[in-house]
């Protein structure tokens, strides 16, 4: 299998990091994801939007007092895509 056939949405450093984080938890907020992935707010925002548009994650925006709070959750479609990606990578890594 060619390496270029991997899901382009997941085969990107920051998006893959976000998905790996979200697959392990129920929900995580923007600040937590930003800290764990050591990314900038601007770049993370763009990548989260891409994942959300693809239906891989759900983004909820709400206010906690006056502070906006963005929460992300992986969807079933996202879990399936992640599983497929991991299987393909494993296939590639097989000797």
């Amino acid at each position, binding site marked *: 299998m060619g390496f270029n056939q991997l899901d382009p949405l997941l085969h990107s450093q920051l998006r893959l990091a976000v998905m790996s984080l979200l697959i392990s938890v*129920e929900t995580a907020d923007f600040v937590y994801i930003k800290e764990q992935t050591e*990314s900038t707010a601007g770049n993370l925002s763009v990548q989260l939007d891409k994942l959300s548009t693809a239906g891989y994650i759900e983004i909820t925006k709400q206010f906690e007092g006056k502070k906006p709070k963005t929460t992300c959750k992986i969807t079933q479609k996202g879990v399936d895509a992640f599983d497929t990606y991991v299987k393909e990578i494993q296939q590639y890594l097989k000797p």
Partner: protein
Amino acid sequence: MEEKELTPHESMALIQSMIGKARKRYSDNSFFFLLWGWIVLVASVGHYYLSTFTDFEYPFIGWSLTIIGAIVSGVVGARRGKKSQVKNYTDKMYAWLWFSLGMAMFTIVFNGQLIGWNTVPFILLLAGVGTAVSGAMMGFRPLQIGGLVFWILAFIAFRQPENYQMLILAGGIAIGYLVPGYIMKANFRKHGV
């Protein structure tokens, strides 16, 4: 995090590292163990003292503290949940475990009259389940030992009159909740884990 072309090895390493970051060891839940430990200790010792050494009509009065405990636990738990930046499945399981056990304990005490107020052994068993499972989830041995102690004390409590059951409960709560609670609190203060 810089954007660059990933090799399969880098992909795998990244996935493993992020999953490792998300896997939390355990939260500091010592507050709840200490809150309930002290409430039950005061109520059970008070119950024993009042029913053995006085003619007070309501020796069980101390148990009304459990209402305050339930409200405080609910408020603190909800506030912590709201404040936390990430929701883990283990935290959710933990909350549901203790909520279910709390409901079971309430049901037993509420219907206590129907079983001749022989409630303590059942409370000890339920507390033992919660403590042992919490200990296993957190990988925290003092709680697992506490669970074992609750189970042994339940065996003894079934064979004792209500008065002595109160003392057994007090002993169980001291070993099963308070000791692990204080160890957990000290660990978090020292290492943050």
